[in-house]
Protein backbone atom coordinates (compact mmCIF):
# COMPACT_ATOMS: atom_id res chain seq x y z
CA UNK A 1 0.00 0.00 0.00
CA UNK A 2 1.27 3.45 -0.85
CA UNK A 3 0.25 6.86 0.35
CA UNK A 4 -0.81 9.85 -1.66
CA UNK A 5 -0.69 13.29 -0.07
CA UNK A 6 -1.79 16.86 -0.56
CA UNK A 7 -0.78 19.94 1.46
CA UNK A 8 -2.29 23.39 1.86
CA UNK A 9 -1.36 26.65 3.55
CA UNK A 10 -3.22 26.84 6.84
CA UNK A 11 -5.81 29.61 6.62
CA UNK A 12 -9.53 30.26 6.62
CA UNK A 13 -9.82 29.62 2.89
CA UNK A 14 -8.28 26.19 3.08
CA UNK A 15 -10.06 25.07 6.29
CA UNK A 16 -13.37 24.07 4.61
CA UNK A 17 -11.37 22.21 1.92
CA UNK A 18 -9.43 20.28 4.54
CA UNK A 19 -12.62 19.53 6.50
CA UNK A 20 -14.36 18.29 3.34
CA UNK A 21 -11.40 16.04 2.46
CA UNK A 22 -11.29 14.52 5.94
CA UNK A 23 -15.07 13.92 5.83
CA UNK A 24 -14.97 12.28 2.39
CA UNK A 25 -11.84 10.19 3.03
CA UNK A 26 -12.21 8.33 6.32
CA UNK A 27 -8.69 6.89 6.05
CA UNK A 28 -7.05 10.25 5.53
CA UNK A 29 -5.04 11.91 8.30
CA UNK A 30 -4.05 15.55 8.61
CA UNK A 31 -0.68 16.58 10.05
CA UNK A 32 -0.22 20.23 10.94
CA UNK A 33 3.11 22.03 11.00
CA UNK A 34 3.56 25.82 11.12
CA UNK A 35 1.72 27.38 8.18
CA UNK A 36 1.18 24.01 6.53
CA UNK A 37 -1.32 21.15 6.72
CA UNK A 38 -0.44 17.86 4.98
CA UNK A 39 -3.12 15.23 4.40
CA UNK A 40 -1.99 11.65 3.82
CA UNK A 41 -4.23 8.88 2.57
CA UNK A 42 -3.59 5.26 1.63
CA UNK A 43 -3.80 4.63 -2.15
CA UNK A 44 -6.12 7.44 -3.16
CA UNK A 45 -7.81 10.61 -2.04
CA UNK A 46 -10.83 12.39 -3.46
CA UNK A 47 -11.80 16.06 -3.17
CA UNK A 48 -15.45 16.80 -3.98
CA UNK A 49 -16.75 20.20 -4.97
CA UNK A 50 -20.14 19.44 -3.43
CA UNK A 51 -18.66 18.63 -0.02
CA UNK A 52 -16.63 21.83 0.03
CA UNK A 53 -19.75 23.80 -0.91
CA UNK A 54 -21.61 22.18 1.98
CA UNK A 55 -18.86 23.28 4.37
CA UNK A 56 -18.75 26.77 2.88
CA UNK A 57 -22.45 27.39 2.30
CA UNK A 58 -21.62 28.90 -1.08
CA UNK A 59 -20.53 27.90 -4.58
CA UNK A 60 -16.95 26.76 -5.03
CA UNK A 61 -14.82 26.25 -8.12
CA UNK A 62 -12.15 23.58 -7.57
CA UNK A 63 -9.69 25.91 -9.33
CA UNK A 64 -9.84 28.14 -6.25
CA UNK A 65 -8.10 25.35 -4.35
CA UNK A 66 -4.87 26.20 -6.19
CA UNK A 67 -4.54 29.51 -4.36
CA UNK A 68 -3.69 27.70 -1.11
CA UNK A 69 -2.34 24.44 -2.51
CA UNK A 70 1.30 23.76 -1.56
CA UNK A 71 2.21 20.31 -2.80
CA UNK A 72 0.84 16.87 -3.62
CA UNK A 73 1.98 13.41 -4.65
CA UNK A 74 0.05 11.00 -6.86
CA UNK A 75 -1.44 11.06 -10.31
CA UNK A 76 -4.16 13.65 -10.79
CA UNK A 77 -7.57 13.03 -12.28
CA UNK A 78 -9.75 16.12 -12.27
CA UNK A 79 -12.98 17.49 -13.65
CA UNK A 80 -15.41 20.21 -12.55
CA UNK A 81 -16.88 18.13 -9.71
CA UNK A 82 -13.97 16.29 -8.22
CA UNK A 83 -10.22 16.04 -7.96
CA UNK A 84 -8.68 12.62 -7.36
CA UNK A 85 -5.15 11.62 -6.42
CA UNK A 86 -4.05 8.02 -6.79
CA UNK A 87 -1.20 5.77 -7.85
CA UNK A 88 -3.49 3.72 -10.12
CA UNK A 89 -2.44 4.59 -13.58
Amino acid at each position, binding site marked *: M*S*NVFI*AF*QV*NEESRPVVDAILADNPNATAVY*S*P*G*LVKIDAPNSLVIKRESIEEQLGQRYDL*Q*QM*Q*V*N*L*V*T*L*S*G*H*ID*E*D*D*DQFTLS*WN*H
Partner: protein
Amino acid sequence: MDTTVKHPAMNRNQRTQALTHDLAWQVSQPDAVFPARSLEGIRIHDWSALRQPLQPSVEQYWKVQGDKDKRLYAITDAFAQNNGQLGLSDARFANAIKLLLQAFSPIEYSAHRACARAARQLGLTTVAFQAADHLRHNQLEIHATSHFNKYFNGMHSYTEWFDHHWMLSVAKSYADDLLSAGPFEVMVAMAVGYNPVICNTLYVSYMSAAADNGDMSTSSAGLTAQSDKVRHQAAGLAWVEFLVQQDPANVPLVQAWIDKWFWRSVRLSSLVGVMQDYMLPFHSHSWQEIWTTYVQQPLQQIFETWKPLGLTLPSNWAQACEQQAHVSHQTWLRLCRYSAGLPLHVWAPNASALDWLSQKYPGTFDAMFRPHLMGLAHQIAHGQRPQETTAPVLCGTCQLPVPGMAGSAALAQAKNLQGRCFCSLPCQHIFNLDADKHSAQAASSAQRHSWALPASQAADGGLFDGSQDEHNFEEWNGGAQHP
Protein backbone atom coordinates in the same frame (compact mmCIF):
# COMPACT_ATOMS: atom_id res chain seq x y z
CA MET B 1 -37.77 29.78 -37.15
CA ASP B 2 -34.46 28.88 -35.55
CA THR B 3 -34.58 26.84 -32.40
CA THR B 4 -31.83 27.05 -29.85
CA VAL B 5 -29.97 23.77 -29.59
CA LYS B 6 -28.80 23.17 -26.06
CA HIS B 7 -25.42 21.43 -25.82
CA PRO B 8 -24.57 19.46 -22.71
CA ALA B 9 -22.12 21.41 -20.55
CA MET B 10 -18.46 20.49 -20.98
CA ASN B 11 -16.26 19.96 -18.01
CA ARG B 12 -13.07 21.95 -17.60
CA ASN B 13 -10.78 19.50 -19.36
CA GLN B 14 -13.12 19.24 -22.32
CA ARG B 15 -13.38 23.02 -22.48
CA THR B 16 -9.60 23.39 -22.45
CA GLN B 17 -9.35 20.77 -25.15
CA ALA B 18 -11.99 22.54 -27.21
CA LEU B 19 -10.46 25.96 -26.70
CA THR B 20 -6.81 25.18 -27.21
CA HIS B 21 -6.22 21.96 -29.08
CA ASP B 22 -8.00 22.32 -32.37
CA LEU B 23 -7.93 25.62 -34.15
CA ALA B 24 -8.51 23.82 -37.45
CA TRP B 25 -5.11 25.17 -38.41
CA GLN B 26 -2.42 22.74 -39.42
CA VAL B 27 1.11 24.10 -39.63
CA SER B 28 2.25 23.13 -43.12
CA GLN B 29 5.95 23.30 -42.26
CA PRO B 30 6.31 22.46 -38.55
CA ASP B 31 10.08 22.00 -38.92
CA ALA B 32 10.41 25.60 -40.03
CA VAL B 33 8.23 26.96 -37.23
CA PHE B 34 9.67 24.71 -34.50
CA PRO B 35 13.21 23.86 -35.63
CA ALA B 36 14.39 23.06 -32.09
CA ARG B 37 11.90 20.19 -31.86
CA SER B 38 14.22 18.02 -33.91
CA LEU B 39 17.59 18.89 -32.35
CA GLU B 40 17.71 16.55 -29.36
CA GLY B 41 16.80 13.30 -31.08
CA ILE B 42 13.35 13.06 -29.49
CA ARG B 43 10.68 11.73 -31.84
CA ILE B 44 7.12 12.96 -31.44
CA HIS B 45 4.41 11.53 -33.70
CA ASP B 46 1.27 13.01 -32.18
CA TRP B 47 1.46 16.24 -30.16
CA SER B 48 -2.26 16.03 -29.40
CA ALA B 49 -1.58 13.05 -27.11
CA LEU B 50 0.11 15.34 -24.56
CA ARG B 51 -1.99 15.53 -21.38
CA GLN B 52 -1.63 18.74 -19.40
CA PRO B 53 -3.12 18.21 -15.95
CA LEU B 54 -4.05 21.29 -13.87
CA GLN B 55 -3.68 23.48 -16.95
CA PRO B 56 -5.76 26.63 -16.51
CA SER B 57 -7.15 28.84 -19.24
CA VAL B 58 -5.37 32.19 -19.58
CA GLU B 59 -8.28 33.89 -17.86
CA GLN B 60 -8.24 31.48 -14.92
CA TYR B 61 -4.46 31.70 -14.73
CA TRP B 62 -4.40 35.47 -14.21
CA LYS B 63 -7.26 35.30 -11.73
CA VAL B 64 -5.73 32.56 -9.57
CA GLN B 65 -2.23 34.10 -9.71
CA GLY B 66 -3.67 37.51 -8.81
CA ASP B 67 -5.46 36.01 -5.80
CA LYS B 68 -2.25 34.34 -4.67
CA ASP B 69 -0.27 37.57 -4.88
CA LYS B 70 -2.92 39.60 -3.03
CA ARG B 71 -2.72 37.16 -0.14
CA LEU B 72 1.07 37.12 -0.14
CA TYR B 73 1.68 40.86 -0.32
CA ALA B 74 -0.82 41.51 2.47
CA ILE B 75 1.32 39.24 4.65
CA THR B 76 4.70 40.67 3.62
CA ASP B 77 3.40 44.23 4.16
CA ALA B 78 2.06 43.35 7.60
CA PHE B 79 5.34 41.64 8.45
CA ALA B 80 7.35 44.73 7.52
CA GLN B 81 4.95 47.15 9.23
CA ASN B 82 5.13 45.10 12.41
CA ASN B 83 8.97 45.03 12.50
CA GLY B 84 8.86 41.31 11.82
CA GLN B 85 12.66 41.06 11.83
CA LEU B 86 12.60 41.46 15.63
CA GLY B 87 10.50 38.32 15.98
CA LEU B 88 12.98 35.97 14.31
CA SER B 89 14.00 33.04 16.48
CA ASP B 90 17.56 34.35 16.35
CA ALA B 91 19.81 36.38 14.04
CA ARG B 92 21.50 33.10 13.05
CA PHE B 93 18.34 32.26 11.17
CA ALA B 94 18.90 35.23 8.82
CA ASN B 95 21.66 33.16 7.21
CA ALA B 96 19.10 30.71 5.86
CA ILE B 97 17.32 33.66 4.23
CA LYS B 98 20.67 34.76 2.78
CA LEU B 99 21.33 31.34 1.28
CA LEU B 100 17.84 31.23 -0.23
CA LEU B 101 18.39 34.59 -1.87
CA GLN B 102 21.98 33.93 -2.96
CA ALA B 103 21.63 30.41 -4.33
CA PHE B 104 18.00 29.69 -5.16
CA SER B 105 16.37 32.95 -6.27
CA PRO B 106 18.76 33.31 -9.23
CA ILE B 107 17.96 29.74 -10.27
CA GLU B 108 14.31 30.77 -10.43
CA TYR B 109 15.25 33.55 -12.81
CA SER B 110 17.26 31.16 -14.96
CA ALA B 111 14.33 28.71 -14.92
CA HIS B 112 12.14 31.56 -16.12
CA ARG B 113 14.46 32.16 -19.07
CA ALA B 114 14.88 28.47 -19.84
CA CYS B 115 11.11 27.89 -19.80
CA ALA B 116 10.37 31.00 -21.85
CA ARG B 117 12.69 29.65 -24.54
CA ALA B 118 11.29 26.12 -24.27
CA ALA B 119 7.73 27.46 -24.54
CA ARG B 120 8.55 29.09 -27.85
CA GLN B 121 10.63 26.21 -29.15
CA LEU B 122 8.04 23.58 -28.29
CA GLY B 123 4.96 25.75 -28.82
CA LEU B 124 3.31 24.91 -25.49
CA THR B 125 1.10 27.26 -23.47
CA THR B 126 1.66 25.37 -20.20
CA VAL B 127 5.37 26.03 -20.48
CA ALA B 128 4.70 29.73 -21.11
CA PHE B 129 2.70 29.82 -17.86
CA GLN B 130 5.58 28.05 -16.14
CA ALA B 131 8.01 30.67 -17.44
CA ALA B 132 5.82 33.42 -15.97
CA ASP B 133 5.61 31.46 -12.70
CA HIS B 134 9.38 31.23 -12.30
CA LEU B 135 9.72 34.96 -12.88
CA ARG B 136 7.04 35.43 -10.21
CA HIS B 137 9.00 33.22 -7.79
CA ASN B 138 12.20 35.11 -8.38
CA GLN B 139 10.45 38.42 -7.79
CA LEU B 140 8.45 37.44 -4.75
CA GLU B 141 11.53 35.97 -3.09
CA ILE B 142 13.34 39.25 -3.67
CA HIS B 143 10.35 41.18 -2.30
CA ALA B 144 9.86 38.90 0.71
CA THR B 145 13.54 39.03 1.68
CA SER B 146 14.06 42.72 0.87
CA HIS B 147 12.80 43.69 4.32
CA PHE B 148 15.64 41.69 5.92
CA ASN B 149 18.17 43.33 3.64
CA LYS B 150 17.52 46.55 5.52
CA TYR B 151 18.61 44.95 8.78
CA PHE B 152 21.09 42.17 8.03
CA ASN B 153 24.33 41.79 6.10
CA GLY B 154 24.82 39.21 3.37
CA MET B 155 21.99 40.06 1.01
CA HIS B 156 22.89 43.26 -0.81
CA SER B 157 25.10 41.82 -3.58
CA TYR B 158 23.59 38.39 -4.03
CA THR B 159 23.64 38.41 -7.86
CA GLU B 160 27.32 39.36 -7.89
CA TRP B 161 28.08 36.51 -5.47
CA PHE B 162 25.96 34.09 -7.48
CA ASP B 163 28.07 34.83 -10.54
CA HIS B 164 31.46 34.79 -8.84
CA HIS B 165 31.59 33.07 -5.45
CA TRP B 166 32.78 29.48 -5.39
CA MET B 167 30.27 28.57 -2.66
CA LEU B 168 27.40 29.42 -5.03
CA SER B 169 29.05 27.81 -8.02
CA VAL B 170 26.96 24.67 -7.46
CA ALA B 171 23.82 26.75 -8.01
CA LYS B 172 25.26 28.86 -10.83
CA SER B 173 26.44 25.84 -12.79
CA TYR B 174 23.05 24.17 -12.29
CA ALA B 175 21.31 27.25 -13.70
CA ASP B 176 23.76 27.51 -16.61
CA ASP B 177 23.34 23.84 -17.44
CA LEU B 178 19.58 24.37 -17.54
CA LEU B 179 19.92 27.47 -19.71
CA SER B 180 22.11 25.71 -22.24
CA ALA B 181 19.99 22.54 -22.49
CA GLY B 182 17.54 21.83 -25.30
CA PRO B 183 13.82 22.37 -24.62
CA PHE B 184 12.95 18.68 -24.19
CA GLU B 185 15.77 18.28 -21.68
CA VAL B 186 14.80 21.46 -19.80
CA MET B 187 11.30 20.15 -19.18
CA VAL B 188 12.55 16.71 -18.08
CA ALA B 189 15.09 18.40 -15.78
CA MET B 190 12.30 20.35 -14.10
CA ALA B 191 10.10 17.24 -13.84
CA VAL B 192 12.57 14.77 -12.34
CA GLY B 193 15.19 17.05 -10.77
CA TYR B 194 14.33 20.57 -9.78
CA ASN B 195 10.70 20.06 -8.77
CA PRO B 196 10.79 16.78 -6.84
CA VAL B 197 14.22 17.27 -5.21
CA ILE B 198 14.66 21.01 -4.65
CA CYS B 199 11.16 22.49 -4.64
CA ASN B 200 9.46 19.74 -2.68
CA THR B 201 11.97 20.20 0.15
CA LEU B 202 12.93 23.88 0.07
CA TYR B 203 9.49 25.30 -0.70
CA VAL B 204 7.49 22.97 1.55
CA SER B 205 9.16 21.76 4.74
CA TYR B 206 11.83 24.41 4.98
CA MET B 207 9.24 27.18 4.48
CA SER B 208 7.03 25.73 7.19
CA ALA B 209 10.04 25.69 9.51
CA ALA B 210 10.78 29.31 8.52
CA ALA B 211 7.30 30.27 9.75
CA ASP B 212 8.12 28.56 13.03
CA ASN B 213 11.29 30.66 13.24
CA GLY B 214 9.33 33.88 12.92
CA ASP B 215 9.81 34.51 9.21
CA MET B 216 6.25 34.79 7.90
CA SER B 217 7.52 36.84 4.99
CA THR B 218 9.76 34.33 3.22
CA SER B 219 7.63 31.44 4.42
CA SER B 220 4.49 32.77 2.74
CA ALA B 221 6.44 33.55 -0.42
CA GLY B 222 7.83 30.02 -0.53
CA LEU B 223 4.53 28.27 0.09
CA THR B 224 2.70 30.29 -2.54
CA ALA B 225 5.54 29.70 -5.02
CA GLN B 226 5.12 26.01 -4.41
CA SER B 227 1.43 26.21 -5.35
CA ASP B 228 2.62 26.97 -8.91
CA LYS B 229 5.23 24.26 -8.71
CA VAL B 230 2.52 21.67 -8.03
CA ARG B 231 1.16 22.51 -11.46
CA HIS B 232 4.65 22.22 -12.96
CA GLN B 233 5.16 18.90 -11.26
CA ALA B 234 1.86 17.44 -12.53
CA ALA B 235 2.55 18.70 -16.05
CA GLY B 236 6.17 17.51 -15.83
CA LEU B 237 5.26 13.94 -14.98
CA ALA B 238 2.75 13.91 -17.85
CA TRP B 239 5.55 15.29 -20.07
CA VAL B 240 7.94 12.44 -19.25
CA GLU B 241 5.19 9.87 -19.88
CA PHE B 242 4.29 11.55 -23.16
CA LEU B 243 7.88 11.46 -24.41
CA VAL B 244 8.46 7.78 -23.72
CA GLN B 245 5.04 6.77 -25.06
CA GLN B 246 5.63 8.54 -28.35
CA ASP B 247 8.52 6.39 -29.49
CA PRO B 248 10.65 3.62 -27.95
CA ALA B 249 13.74 5.46 -29.21
CA ASN B 250 12.97 8.25 -26.75
CA VAL B 251 13.34 6.00 -23.69
CA PRO B 252 17.16 5.94 -23.42
CA LEU B 253 17.39 9.70 -24.04
CA VAL B 254 14.84 10.46 -21.33
CA GLN B 255 16.45 7.98 -18.94
CA ALA B 256 19.84 9.68 -19.41
CA TRP B 257 18.27 13.06 -18.57
CA ILE B 258 16.59 11.52 -15.51
CA ASP B 259 19.93 10.14 -14.30
CA LYS B 260 21.67 13.45 -14.91
CA TRP B 261 19.15 15.89 -13.46
CA PHE B 262 18.23 13.82 -10.45
CA TRP B 263 21.89 13.67 -9.51
CA ARG B 264 22.59 17.36 -10.22
CA SER B 265 19.58 18.26 -8.07
CA VAL B 266 20.73 15.96 -5.29
CA ARG B 267 24.13 17.69 -5.21
CA LEU B 268 22.47 21.11 -5.17
CA SER B 269 20.10 20.03 -2.40
CA SER B 270 23.07 19.86 0.01
CA LEU B 271 22.48 23.60 0.50
CA VAL B 272 18.86 22.96 1.47
CA GLY B 273 20.22 20.32 3.85
CA VAL B 274 22.35 22.81 5.81
CA MET B 275 19.50 25.32 5.90
CA GLN B 276 17.26 22.66 7.39
CA ASP B 277 19.68 21.03 9.85
CA TYR B 278 21.97 23.89 10.89
CA MET B 279 20.35 27.25 10.23
CA LEU B 280 17.02 26.82 12.03
CA PRO B 281 17.38 27.79 15.71
CA PHE B 282 13.92 26.30 16.32
CA HIS B 283 14.40 22.83 14.93
CA SER B 284 11.87 21.17 12.76
CA HIS B 285 12.23 17.93 10.83
CA SER B 286 15.72 16.84 9.91
CA TRP B 287 16.93 17.03 6.33
CA GLN B 288 16.98 13.25 6.12
CA GLU B 289 13.37 12.99 7.29
CA ILE B 290 12.32 15.53 4.67
CA TRP B 291 14.28 13.74 2.01
CA THR B 292 12.48 10.50 2.87
CA THR B 293 8.97 11.99 2.99
CA TYR B 294 9.10 14.45 0.12
CA VAL B 295 11.73 13.05 -2.25
CA GLN B 296 12.44 9.37 -1.75
CA GLN B 297 8.95 7.95 -1.16
CA PRO B 298 7.07 9.98 -3.82
CA LEU B 299 9.76 9.31 -6.46
CA GLN B 300 9.73 5.60 -5.67
CA GLN B 301 5.98 5.60 -6.30
CA ILE B 302 6.30 7.55 -9.52
CA PHE B 303 8.99 5.27 -10.90
CA GLU B 304 6.95 2.23 -9.89
CA THR B 305 4.14 3.46 -12.17
CA TRP B 306 6.72 4.22 -14.87
CA LYS B 307 8.14 0.67 -14.94
CA PRO B 308 5.78 -0.44 -17.75
CA LEU B 309 7.01 2.55 -19.77
CA GLY B 310 10.57 1.26 -19.60
CA LEU B 311 11.90 3.90 -17.19
CA THR B 312 13.81 2.98 -14.06
CA LEU B 313 14.91 4.84 -10.93
CA PRO B 314 17.94 7.06 -11.58
CA SER B 315 21.12 4.96 -11.89
CA ASN B 316 22.60 6.84 -8.90
CA TRP B 317 19.50 6.41 -6.71
CA ALA B 318 21.04 4.18 -3.99
CA GLN B 319 24.10 6.42 -3.69
CA ALA B 320 21.90 9.52 -3.45
CA CYS B 321 19.71 8.05 -0.71
CA GLU B 322 22.70 6.82 1.26
CA GLN B 323 24.35 10.26 1.18
CA GLN B 324 21.49 11.91 2.98
CA ALA B 325 22.64 10.76 6.41
CA HIS B 326 25.91 12.66 5.90
CA VAL B 327 25.46 15.49 3.49
CA SER B 328 24.21 18.34 5.69
CA HIS B 329 26.97 17.74 8.27
CA GLN B 330 29.72 17.54 5.66
CA THR B 331 28.45 20.70 4.00
CA TRP B 332 28.23 22.64 7.26
CA LEU B 333 31.74 21.59 8.35
CA ARG B 334 33.04 22.71 4.98
CA LEU B 335 31.31 26.09 5.24
CA CYS B 336 32.84 26.54 8.68
CA ARG B 337 36.29 25.68 7.38
CA TYR B 338 36.04 28.37 4.68
CA SER B 339 34.06 30.80 6.83
CA ALA B 340 36.45 33.72 6.33
CA GLY B 341 35.48 34.29 2.71
CA LEU B 342 31.80 33.34 2.60
CA PRO B 343 28.97 35.84 2.07
CA LEU B 344 27.19 34.50 5.18
CA HIS B 345 27.94 33.65 8.81
CA VAL B 346 28.59 30.25 10.33
CA TRP B 347 28.94 29.02 13.90
CA ALA B 348 29.54 25.94 16.01
CA PRO B 349 26.16 24.42 16.99
CA ASN B 350 25.46 24.56 20.72
CA ALA B 351 25.03 21.50 22.93
CA SER B 352 21.27 21.20 22.48
CA ALA B 353 21.63 21.48 18.69
CA LEU B 354 24.24 18.71 18.78
CA ASP B 355 21.90 16.52 20.85
CA TRP B 356 19.07 17.13 18.41
CA LEU B 357 21.28 16.16 15.45
CA SER B 358 22.46 13.09 17.28
CA GLN B 359 18.86 12.03 17.90
CA LYS B 360 17.91 12.67 14.26
CA TYR B 361 20.95 10.93 12.76
CA PRO B 362 21.51 7.85 14.90
CA GLY B 363 24.49 5.87 13.70
CA THR B 364 26.26 8.57 11.72
CA PHE B 365 26.25 11.85 13.61
CA ASP B 366 27.89 10.88 16.89
CA ALA B 367 30.48 8.67 15.26
CA MET B 368 31.47 10.87 12.35
CA PHE B 369 30.50 14.47 12.86
CA ARG B 370 29.97 15.37 16.50
CA PRO B 371 33.67 15.21 17.39
CA HIS B 372 34.50 17.60 14.52
CA LEU B 373 31.78 20.07 15.52
CA MET B 374 32.90 19.96 19.17
CA GLY B 375 36.46 20.54 18.01
CA LEU B 376 35.24 23.51 16.02
CA ALA B 377 33.45 24.95 19.06
CA HIS B 378 36.68 24.55 21.04
CA GLN B 379 38.74 26.27 18.34
CA ILE B 380 36.31 29.17 18.15
CA ALA B 381 36.16 29.55 21.93
CA HIS B 382 39.97 29.72 22.03
CA GLY B 383 40.34 32.14 19.17
CA GLN B 384 41.74 29.50 16.82
CA ARG B 385 39.01 29.55 14.23
CA PRO B 386 39.76 27.88 10.91
CA GLN B 387 41.12 30.37 8.39
CA GLU B 388 41.20 28.67 5.03
CA THR B 389 41.97 31.39 2.54
CA THR B 390 42.33 29.42 -0.70
CA ALA B 391 39.12 28.27 -2.37
CA PRO B 392 38.75 24.48 -2.63
CA VAL B 393 38.98 22.54 -5.89
CA LEU B 394 35.50 22.24 -7.36
CA CYS B 395 33.98 19.24 -9.11
CA GLY B 396 33.98 19.63 -12.90
CA THR B 397 30.26 18.91 -13.02
CA CYS B 398 28.37 19.83 -9.85
CA GLN B 399 30.89 22.48 -8.74
CA LEU B 400 30.86 21.38 -5.11
CA PRO B 401 34.29 20.96 -3.52
CA VAL B 402 36.07 17.71 -4.32
CA PRO B 403 36.74 15.88 -1.05
CA GLY B 404 40.40 15.76 -0.14
CA MET B 405 41.47 18.38 -2.68
CA ALA B 406 42.32 21.65 -0.99
CA GLY B 407 45.29 23.98 -0.86
CA SER B 408 47.49 25.45 -3.57
CA ALA B 409 49.06 22.13 -4.67
CA ALA B 410 45.61 20.66 -5.29
CA LEU B 411 44.59 23.78 -7.19
CA ALA B 412 47.63 23.49 -9.44
CA GLN B 413 46.81 19.83 -10.04
CA ALA B 414 43.22 20.74 -10.93
CA LYS B 415 44.48 23.34 -13.36
CA ASN B 416 46.62 20.72 -15.11
CA LEU B 417 43.55 18.52 -15.40
CA GLN B 418 41.60 21.44 -16.91
CA GLY B 419 38.91 21.15 -14.28
CA ARG B 420 38.40 17.42 -14.87
CA CYS B 421 38.31 16.52 -11.17
CA PHE B 422 35.13 14.97 -9.84
CA CYS B 423 33.44 14.53 -6.50
CA SER B 424 31.81 11.27 -7.55
CA LEU B 425 31.36 8.76 -10.36
CA PRO B 426 27.90 10.07 -11.35
CA CYS B 427 29.40 13.55 -11.81
CA GLN B 428 32.21 12.14 -13.95
CA HIS B 429 29.65 10.25 -16.02
CA ILE B 430 27.56 13.40 -16.57
CA PHE B 431 30.68 15.33 -17.59
CA ASN B 432 31.64 12.72 -20.16
CA LEU B 433 28.17 12.75 -21.73
CA ASP B 434 28.78 16.31 -22.86
CA ALA B 435 32.44 17.01 -22.27
CA ASP B 436 32.57 20.15 -24.42
CA LYS B 437 29.80 21.88 -22.53
CA HIS B 438 31.08 20.96 -19.08
CA SER B 439 34.69 21.83 -19.97
CA ALA B 440 33.54 25.37 -20.70
CA GLN B 441 31.99 25.49 -17.28
CA ALA B 442 35.06 24.02 -15.62
CA ALA B 443 37.12 26.77 -17.26
CA SER B 444 34.93 29.47 -15.75
CA SER B 445 35.24 27.85 -12.33
CA ALA B 446 38.97 28.54 -12.51
CA GLN B 447 38.11 32.24 -12.63
CA ARG B 448 36.01 31.80 -9.53
CA HIS B 449 39.09 30.62 -7.64
CA SER B 450 40.71 33.97 -8.10
CA TRP B 451 37.60 35.92 -7.01
CA ALA B 452 37.28 36.89 -3.34
CA LEU B 453 34.83 38.96 -1.33
CA PRO B 454 35.93 42.62 -1.62
CA ALA B 455 37.32 44.09 1.61
CA SER B 456 34.30 46.40 1.76
CA GLN B 457 32.10 43.31 2.21
CA ALA B 458 34.04 41.89 5.16
CA ALA B 459 31.01 42.28 7.47
CA ASP B 460 29.09 39.82 5.27
CA GLY B 461 31.32 36.87 6.06
CA GLY B 462 33.12 35.15 8.89
CA LEU B 463 31.83 33.78 12.15
CA PHE B 464 28.45 34.68 13.52
CA ASP B 465 29.96 35.13 16.99
CA GLY B 466 31.04 38.73 17.18
CA SER B 467 29.38 39.69 13.88
CA GLN B 468 27.49 42.91 13.25
CA ASP B 469 24.31 40.82 12.72
CA GLU B 470 24.66 39.31 16.20
CA HIS B 471 25.40 42.62 17.82
CA ASN B 472 22.51 44.45 16.12
CA PHE B 473 19.94 41.80 16.86
CA GLU B 474 20.82 41.78 20.55
CA GLU B 475 20.67 45.53 20.70
CA TRP B 476 17.31 45.83 18.95
CA ASN B 477 15.66 43.21 21.06
CA GLY B 478 17.12 44.62 24.27
CA GLY B 479 16.17 48.17 23.32
CA ALA B 480 12.71 47.40 21.99
CA GLN B 481 11.47 46.05 25.34
CA HIS B 482 9.41 43.25 23.90
CA PRO B 483 7.01 41.52 26.26
